[in-house]
């Protein structure tokens, strides 16, 4: 399998190609720096993303609070995490940085609030 990626490490936006065979990287080409190579390999083998969403707030001035994972999450876990976030509700007041969930889905991340919500 051959993957063609646009590198996002810097604004140059090199086109990096990664050849994968049986889950192993066989060849990487097109990168112009070691960071780009590293990024492309991770992007193909175990892509991760920081997840952000909003969750429901009870008794708040605003009906939602924005949240993020404090670390990137494996891409294939994201839909499940989003479903979990859709179900929960927190009570105002909420501080920026307040931990909403510890280790959701047994992932080694925290879900933290990114917006302050005062009580209504």
């Amino acid at each position, binding site marked *: 399998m051959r993957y063609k990626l*646009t*590198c*996002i490490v810097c*604004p*140059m*936006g090199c086109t990096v190609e990664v050849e994968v065979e049986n889950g192993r990287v066989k060849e990487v080409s097109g990168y112009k720096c070691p960071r780009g190579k590293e990024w492309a390999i991770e992007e193909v083998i175990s892509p991760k*993303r*920081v*997840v*952000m*969403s*909003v969750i*429901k707030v009870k008794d708040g001035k*605003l*009906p*939602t609070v*924005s*949240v*993020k994972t404090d670390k990137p999450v494996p*891409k294939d876990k*994201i839909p499940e995490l*989003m479903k979990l976030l*859709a179900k929960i509700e927190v009570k105002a007041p909420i501080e*920026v940085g307040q931990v909403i969930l510890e280790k959701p889905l047994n992932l080694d991340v925290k879900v933290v609030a*990114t*917006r*302050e919500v005062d009580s209504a």
Partner: protein
Amino acid sequence: MIYDTIIIGGGPAGLAAAVKAKKLGLKVLLLDENEFLGGILPQCIHPGFGLHYFKEELTGPEFAHRFIREINKLNIEHYTNAYVLEIENYSDLEKKVVFSSPKGVMEVWGKTIIYAAGARERHAFEIGIVGDRVAGIYTAGEAQTLMDIYGVMPGKEVVIVGSGDVGLIMARRFALEGAKVKAVIELMPYPGGLARNVMILRDFEIPLYLSHKVVEVRGRKRVEKVKVVKVDENLKEIPGSEFWIECDTLLISAGLIPNVKLLKRIGAQIDPLNGGPIVNEFLETTIPGIFVAGNALLINDLVDYVAEQGELAALGAKEFIKNQGILSRKWIELKRGSNVRILAPHYISGERDVYIYARVSRPMENVRVTFPEIGKELRLPVVKPSEMLRIKLKAEEMQKAEKEITMEVEKGEV
């Protein structure tokens, strides 16, 4: 009572200006039309903010929070729900700002004004979309407010017009929340957003149609389908290339326009290419003592530079009050050369270091940026319209300059 500076707009530019002005010892009043400070930031819940300014990656609400905390700590006087109706310029050190608020219409006086009213989004009628006037047509920012402030899903099957950053980020938000993003339609032959955002399309397998436009909306009460057509290299529609996409929501992300209505009304000169006012190196408009910062000056892609402009305008206000004006022995005009579309400031003294904000008209690789009058040259591997350039001109470099300095963006010899 007269304030040293009245800041209009409590987004990143206004917040940064307020904090800086207060720290410089000025008597500050900050006004914002919304019910909370932060401008657009509280709804920009994705990461990517603050890498330059705070040297760490924050979300929009977190970036705003850092400044709002300072506003409260420094006891900076501010009103929310304050919608500015009028600015009047009585004299260089007497300016009146009239605003509506829950307490009624109020008047305040300032020696200077920092105008940080941001930008508005271009809407469907401005990009030639015709057809039924039905529910389900939103600007990207409106959809973002609904989803990320109020927790309301605007639709389930979405077509997005424009591949700029806001459009792409909303494509991700809709996809994450389980909506189907059926297409992103881009008029230009290249994507409009930063590379890290273009990657969203691959993450969620969203088709991108370059050199296409949406021309028509059909539906009864709600959007049911949109008509898409391919365009040629002159952006002219190609007959026979039309097709329809079924959807219940059309999202318009077709660029931002600086909010300059109140400034125009009092005669500030506008740069038609930037869409914002003509300014000097302290971001003072052509009306003495009225400064501008952030997206009201020119459309930025990084909030970090917006905050930087706010701080610069605050420095300008301080300088203006101290010297009864922004003084200079001469003003050198900064001019657009080839492949420069957006450019500010317009006039520089040559006596201080200055940052130039610029944007190219078209993408280019292996680039030489030159300022021929002062013999300055730098090289960049790539320039794109989606990525603003910020270039420092040092005072000592500008000594040779007389009347003007031109910025040229050209292909470097290989």
